């Protein structure tokens, strides 16, 4: 047991976001853990305001997705071109039931260093609010 839920620490990986997340600059340490169901991950802040994000592999949403990381992003993640990285897109469930995924600024985690950042390429083909499902009528 721990303060964020019922599973042991061994199943919860701690990730450091040295720059915080935009809008949550005080949140620099997160745990990432698999959702109970489905292929989703929760990203939960361990400091600053309580904040959890439901995330999904962006390629689960758009299989042909292509992202190019800037050299500075690789430096921040302490990764090389060959490092296998974990990509997570933040899911937004809106008040009316619309579900959208932020494909513009995905979260990238280097599993070797456990450093993460939210990347915002200068130009992107993908929107901040990619609607995957409108509310049922």
């Amino acid at each position, binding site marked *: 047991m721990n*303060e*964020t*839920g*019922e599973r042991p620490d061994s199943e919860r990986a701690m990730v450091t976001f*040295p*720059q915080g*997340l*935009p*809008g*949550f600059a005080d949140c620099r340490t997160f745990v990432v853990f698999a*959702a*109970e*169901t*489905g292929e*989703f991950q*929760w990203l*939960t802040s361990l400091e600053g*305001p*309580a*904040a*959890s*994000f*439901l995330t*999904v592999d962006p390629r*689960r*949403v758009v299989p042909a997705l292509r992202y190019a990381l800037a*050299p*500075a992003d690789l*430096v*921040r993640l302490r990764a090389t071109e060959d490092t296998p990285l974990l990509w997570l897109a*933040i*899911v*937004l*469930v*809106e008040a009316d*039931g619309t*579900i959208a995924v*932020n494909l*513009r*600024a995905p979260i990238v985690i280097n599993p070797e260093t456990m450093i993460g*950042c*939210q990347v*915002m390429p*200068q130009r992107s083909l993908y929107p*901040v*609010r990619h609607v*995957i*499902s409108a509310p049922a009528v």
Partner: protein
Amino acid sequence: MLVFTRRRGEAIVIGDGIEIHVLRIGRDGVRIGVAAPDNVPVHRQEIYEQICAANRAAATSDAADAERRAALEAQLIARLK
């Protein structure tokens, strides 16, 4: 706010290692070059603010609640089918 007058080719230095260069001056815009260390992200303000707003909208404060988590996950699974 500090206000400077700079000519084309001139620059401003911020702290240790951040340089802002005025590259070109046009009628409606100024082309600016920014050199910053890799640990200092540089973004257009409107994009940065859009991402901040999206993150704030997506954050849930009650995810420690397993039931609330399960409800959100179930919604997502149903829609991704």
